[in-house]
């Protein structure tokens, strides 16, 4: 346990229902590893680009969707309602996550993307894994930077008595870019907890030569050593007695595969590993064709995938509940992008941009952050959904409210300042919750006049004070104007925006002020 982390996470903790504030309490230092040190984030990556409009379905825009995406449209009466929320529902196969919503363990962040979205699977995946800007290449993953910030000496001298366990574990498949930091893999990967991971009696200890092949040899030896050293603790955790939820699905290959990964995760947490991050994945979301069954849109490829995901998340949450681990673990899903508003003739959808992200667990602040996506009235096959929240704002929220990093540390992980969102319950963080945003949802914080406009329009906006940002995007999601981004006093302001040099068509104006954000549809005409 290192003192730096203790100081960072000291604030308000709850012991037996009583809030204890302050440092220096012997009780606190005895309990310190039940605070942020003990928290686990489970990342579920959905490879292929998930169709968000068929996942979190904006029923309030149903008539528009009926004409724009008739090839994949889910019948309105089949959409699963979300209690307390009208106009939005879940895909009919997502009963598991509907249950979590009803239990208050699910948050939905709408319209997650970034300026100038990329439509290539590999580049977009890389962007989400590294946290890069669209025009930037980073040689480290965002989780890799977080772990490196937290454990700066890794891998030299690891494992050790303070940190005996892997920092991160990728279950199934190799370690991706998200866990890398400047060429060092901050995590380990396992396919099967029954694998004997042994390395004994190694006599090949010649020093690596000071050249390229020597550098490679050193890299291989590092993995060789990790294989051996972490093999023991992983095996011990895997073989401890923990009983699992009976709810894990067994009805499809993809469901079974994810269930195996998540069961390994809950087993290792229950078995006592202090690993911070688990990263699991599903693939198959690239539904250009046959996303739905032509005869019944509620079944087919995408339905199977969402069912596998949803049933598994529900089972995993139940697993944690049975093990008494619920308050220590939260989960997050992401895909490399959402899909296009319009469907294509092959019962599928092409690559898009903004997507909903799910956060789940007993400590998320339940509800939907953001609004239903705006479907422009003159949508074409090239139109994309507008961004509401930057994906790095979600990461910032996890870092601030789950791992209790101060703002300066968050900035050094994400490399720029991204406003965290209030989606996670965190003792010691002075946060308002999703309800504040929801209460503001009916209030007009941003308007444009004239609209439609020919060359110029005036944006009127209201900030509650603090960081305030005003952007204009084109329908591709490309940032065409950063109107302003600064700390402001509370009040209502006007700003004139000149789009005289831009093409006619749909634009989006976006205001972000803390958790509050609003998007307004602009139409430029001749």
């Amino acid at each position: 346990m290192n003192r730096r982390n203790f100081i960072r996470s000291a604030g308000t903790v709850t012991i037996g229902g009583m809030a204890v504030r302050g440092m220096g309490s012997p009780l606190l230092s005895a309990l310190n590893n039940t605070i942020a040190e003990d928290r686990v984030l489970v990342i579920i990556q959905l490879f292929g680009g998930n169709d968000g409009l068929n996942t979190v379905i904006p029923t309030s825009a149903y008539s528009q969707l009926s004409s724009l995406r008739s090839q994949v449209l889910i019948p309105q009466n089949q959409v699963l309602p979300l209690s307390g929320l009208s106009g939005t529902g879940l895909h009919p196969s997502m009963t598991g996550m509907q249950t979590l919503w009803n239990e208050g363990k699910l948050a939905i962040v709408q319209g997650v993307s970034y300026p100038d979205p990329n439509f290539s699977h590999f580049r977009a995946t890389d962007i989400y894994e590294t946290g890069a800007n669209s025009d930037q290449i980073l040689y480290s993953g965002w989780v890799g930077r977080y772990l490196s910030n937290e454990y700066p000496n890794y891998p030299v001298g690891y494992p050790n008595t303070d940190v005996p366990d892997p920092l991160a574990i990728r279950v199934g498949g190799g370690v991706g870019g998200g866990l890398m930091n400047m060429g060092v893999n901050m995590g380990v990967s396992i396919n099967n907890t029954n694998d004997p991971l042994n390395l004994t009696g190694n006599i090949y200890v010649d020093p690596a030569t000071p050249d390229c092949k020597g550098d490679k040899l050193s890299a291989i030896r590092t993995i060789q050593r990790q294989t051996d050293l972490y093999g023991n603790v992983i095996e011990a955790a895997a073989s401890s007695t923990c009983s699992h939820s009976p709810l894990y699905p067994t009805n499809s290959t993809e469901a079974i595969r994810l269930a195996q990964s998540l069961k390994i995760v809950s087993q290792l947490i229950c078995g006592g590993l202090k690993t911070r991050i688990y990263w699991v994945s599903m693939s198959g979301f690239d539904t250009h064709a046959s996303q739905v069954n032509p005869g019944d849109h509620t079944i087919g490829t995408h339905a199977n995938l969402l069912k596998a995901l949803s049933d598994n998340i529900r089972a995993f949450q139940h697993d944690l509940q049975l093990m008494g681990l619920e308050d220590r673990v939260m989960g997050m899903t992401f895909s490399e992008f959402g899909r296009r508003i319009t469907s294509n003739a092959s019962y599928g959808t092409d690559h898009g941009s903004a997507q909903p992200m799910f956060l789940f667990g007993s400590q998320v602040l339940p509800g939907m952050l953001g609004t239903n996506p705006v479907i422009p009235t003159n949508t074409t096959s090239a139109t994309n959904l507008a961004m509401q929240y930057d994906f790095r704002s979600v990461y910032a929220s996890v870092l601030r409210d789950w791992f209790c990093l101060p703002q300066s540390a968050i900035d050094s992980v994400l490399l720029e300042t991204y406003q965290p969102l209030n989606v996670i319950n965190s003792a010691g963080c002075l946060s308002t919750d999703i309800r504040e945003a929801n209460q503001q949802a009916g209030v007009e914080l941003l308007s444009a006049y004239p609209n439609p406009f020919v060359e110029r329009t005036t944006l009127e906006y209201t900030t509650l004070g603090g960081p305030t940002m005003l952007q204009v995007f084109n329908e591709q999601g490309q940032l065409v104007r950063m109107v302003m981004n600064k700390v402001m006093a509370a009040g209502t302001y006007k700003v004139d925006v000149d789009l005289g040099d831009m093409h006619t068509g749909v634009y989006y104006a976006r205001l972000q002020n803390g958790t509050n954000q609003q998007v307004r549809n602009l139409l430029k005409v001749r």
Partner: protein
Amino acid sequence: MPITPYTGPFGRPELQHLLRRSLFGCTTADRAHFEGMSLDQVVNELLTFTNDTTPPVRAYTDENGDPNGIDAAVPFGSTWVDTPITPLNDTDVIEVRIRSFAAWWMGLMRGQQRNLREKLTLFWHNHLPTQVSIVYQSEMQYRQNQLLRSGCKGNFKQLIHDVSVEPAMLFYLNGYLNVAAAPDENYARELFELFTLGQGSGYTEADVQAAARVLTGWTFMVENGGTPVLPQTLFFPPNHTASDKQFSAFFNNTVIQGQTGPDAGETELNALLDMILAVPECSRFICRELYRFFVHGEISAEAEAEVIGPLAQLFRENVDAPDQIAIVLRALLTSDHFFSNAIRGCMVKNPVDLVVGDLRLFDFPIPDPGLVEARYLVDLEHYWLTAYAGMNLMAPPNVAGWPAYYLYPSYDELWLDTATYPQRNNSLLAVVYGSVETPSNTVQPGSADLAFRVDIIAFVQQLSDPADPNALITDLVDLLYVNPISDAVKLQLKHFYLLFGQVSDIYWTEAYEAYIADPNTTNMTAQLVPDILRWLIGDMQKAAERHLY
């Protein structure tokens, strides 16, 4: 400025380096075959080959060993590649044929001729991949694989052209669904991003959409009037977008004139590929791909200037040459850079190289050609071994191929993680220790109850003086590792294994000579010789050094 040719000494270390990168491993026989030739002579021979393969044959049965229980339309021992599967979606037959194809491919690599054909076929499989889980059609996969093999050193445009309209690719990236009424951008995007230009090279989203329109109308046939037929490419003019296709400034504002009629697809595809190849970035992109596969993962600024630039120039100068790829590869493999210490020994073997290289190095025995059934069973086991080591042929993770060939900055180090490392190790041990046995209920009587295992005595007898423990260890180190191994480690190996912990070399020499004189000797020490050699070599397989080449 042309690439600088290599003019230094061309001795055994240089030959081994060249052969390890061009073949699957370098055996003592490979070495002996080429020793004494000049670099140019060796590379010429490596680039002289044709696709003279014979197709895979039916050597499989159903799970009960009944030869008539599955795919009975094809006579046992005859090839299945010309017989359509009836009914089309008989997945039991598709499954066994895919296995047959996998085993056949493995057999071609392990039994490779001393040339670049199989390594290049694997290169193109990674560069222009399809995934079995999606295509899942044995005849398509076989045909695409043969297309890559036949075109592997030929003309780049021709290869891309052929792959673009091959049924396997039309199916895999939805080309067959790309129609004028509803363009599907999937293939067009990957054609630019992964096959010819590279992400971020400068083309626009509108270019992707325009290219998708150029490519509309191609489809394939697997059934005719309800009767399954061999996969066949078709162009269906009514599904083709007849209007002109405008491209961005990146492509010099090219307009591909809209065509109609039966040749429209072919004409526009050729125009599209000519337009792509006219962009200098295309030549650099493909030269970088070759470099990452054959030379080194990361491309330094120096290599970009001194290797990629000149190679790309050569590529462009030979854009119409029928042996364009061979010309570029010859220049690369005879370059000064290829033999420099900056890249030598500095690549993690891909799992196929690791396993097939070792199967060849230790000369894993294979059944006689007539025993098609035993041959199939052995080949299939070897195929599973490469998959276990981390590279499942036909199943790259996605359309970008394996991340080791594109993901900065780790590249080939991505083959290794704490999950794959033990599996790679186990694969290396399996080659030395393992055996493949055939069942007793084979269809071919001669294929029954056979066992195949590396003959470790025959292997060491190829070395200079296996009776001398010092020479034996030195020869093994030379064959197995590129990194230097100290005398201290060699001494430890000798003492620990060959001398049973004794100090005098004579113990090994006496035991070895006694065993060679009479393999059925009653001398208890001599009887141990094959096991000692397996223990020694098995231990040497566990060194981190084994993963580099």
